């Protein structure tokens, strides 16, 4: 169990960082994963090619919500170039838990919402082709 729900995952689930919404965001996007019922919305404020501020809301399993919280920490203040380069592998590395094929989408939902909001990405991260 310790190798799955690590302390920092549970911490981000119970005390999500950057949780909430932004007033007048430059980008807002929400998606769900109907199979699990996970849902994530991400709001972004952009300034001079950087993410000036970010908030997320959502509901779902611990992995999906912790991933969103961790992701917002990583991209806050980052350049859009950096955000564009943020990969599936990087997201999974941050989570650091072995995800079964079914749970993979829980771990990647936040990244998908972020990239779809920013670039109109239609596929799951890592499957952009």
């Amino acid at each position, binding site marked *: 169990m310790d190798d*799955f*729900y690590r302390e920092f995952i549970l911490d981000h689930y119970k005390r999500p960082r950057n949780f909430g919404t932004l007033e007048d965001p430059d980008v807002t996007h929400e998606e769900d994963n109907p199979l699990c019922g996970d849902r994530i919305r991400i709001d972004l404020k952009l300034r001079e090619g950087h993410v000036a501020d970010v908030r997320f809301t959502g509901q779902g399993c611990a992995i999906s919500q912790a991933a969103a919280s961790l992701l917002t920490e990583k991209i806050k203040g980052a350049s859009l170039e950096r955000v564009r380069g943020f990969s599936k592998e990087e997201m999974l590395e941050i989570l650091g838990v072995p995800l079964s094929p079914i749970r993979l989408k829980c771990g990647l939902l936040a990244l998908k919402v972020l990239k779809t909001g920013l670039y109109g990405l239609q596929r799951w991260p890592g499957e952009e082709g």
Partner: protein
Amino acid sequence: MIRAGGAMTARSRGGRSPAFEVERIRQDFPVLGEKIRGKPLVYLDNAATSQKPHVVIDTIRQFLSTYNSNVHRGVHQLSERATEAYEQARTRVQGFINAAESREIIFVRGTTEAINLVAQSYGRTHIGTGDEIVISAMEHHSNIVPWQILCEQTGAVLRVVPINDDGEMLLDEYVTLLTPRTRLVAVAHVSNALGTINPVREVIRLARRQGVPVLVDGAQAVPHLKVDVRELDCDFYAFSGHKVFGPTGIGVLYGRARLLEAMPPYQGGGDMIKSVTFAKTVYNDLPFKFEAGTPHIGGVIGLGAALDYLDGVGLDRVTAYEDELLVHATEALSAIPGVRIIGTAKEKASVVSFVVDGVHAHDIGTVLDHEGIAIRAGHHCAMPVMQRFGVPATARASLAFYNTREEVDALVRGIHKVIEMFV
């Protein structure tokens, strides 16, 4: 099943003696001795699929290793043996659900295929534009989507009987949905997501009073309750082998002979014909008309063995024992703060769907899995039920007669652990 006021049925009283020897029964199921992550397997996902007793495994092994061959056409001895075993299993199924004739038993892949068969064969010839099909709000997707497909093809309309907050079908609403345009009623005998036992006898009586045929989805009923299709007076009854301790890939459609005879074939191919020329093909008689191609012979024979086994245990005793387990599970889970049971009908089979405040069902499932406890987490192929109760998913423990009170207690300890971790 739980009954209002805790009144015991004749069935329940029958289960009191002799004592139900669950430990001896568990010896019949090899998988129950498995360990998961070093812990004894606690298998509480029986509504998804049931485990298989030795006798089913051995029967299939014996078929494959001593008389494997095709049925209904070989002149050699192996084929005669296989055909005999295959047809004996059909008679076995007939007896098990008390059908009038063995030709009313059609072997299909499972409940899903049985319902699709009725939708496409009966439906496309008897249901047209503006006609209505009535289902309930607690159906499995397999008793929703085949009718939606039929509606798209024919212009028929789907009507849905609502359910109350306990997960019980509203019979008053049902009566108002039965109109002169109603051509078919299709309902679950037992809900897979809620455990509700529907009042199918009454549902059938009301429909047949105005000449409307009824299909009963019995996938979740046959493992728990004695089913008598003639007593129910239903027109079609569908169930799956793998939920009733038999193999996957085999299921049964019971149909009233008069209706089956008037229906066109569902699939064309070998075994379902009497003669073929390019000018005209003559279809075979029942039940072969609906069994195109080489069937799942080992599956059918294995299903027969499973029903024999279940008869040996005694369905009346199974029902009574599972009632006790369900009462225990319901009381123990309800007593945990933050746990809410979804599906609190007065009459229930041994299925407990629940949610835990602040914890997603998948996290419950993962934590329990690490304790060796297998439950189902998700929408249970009944998304409209989840929408009705305003939850994205539930955790579901579904009990069989080989489960024990101690296993229910392990589940309760596991849920306490979930709450400790996440809340």
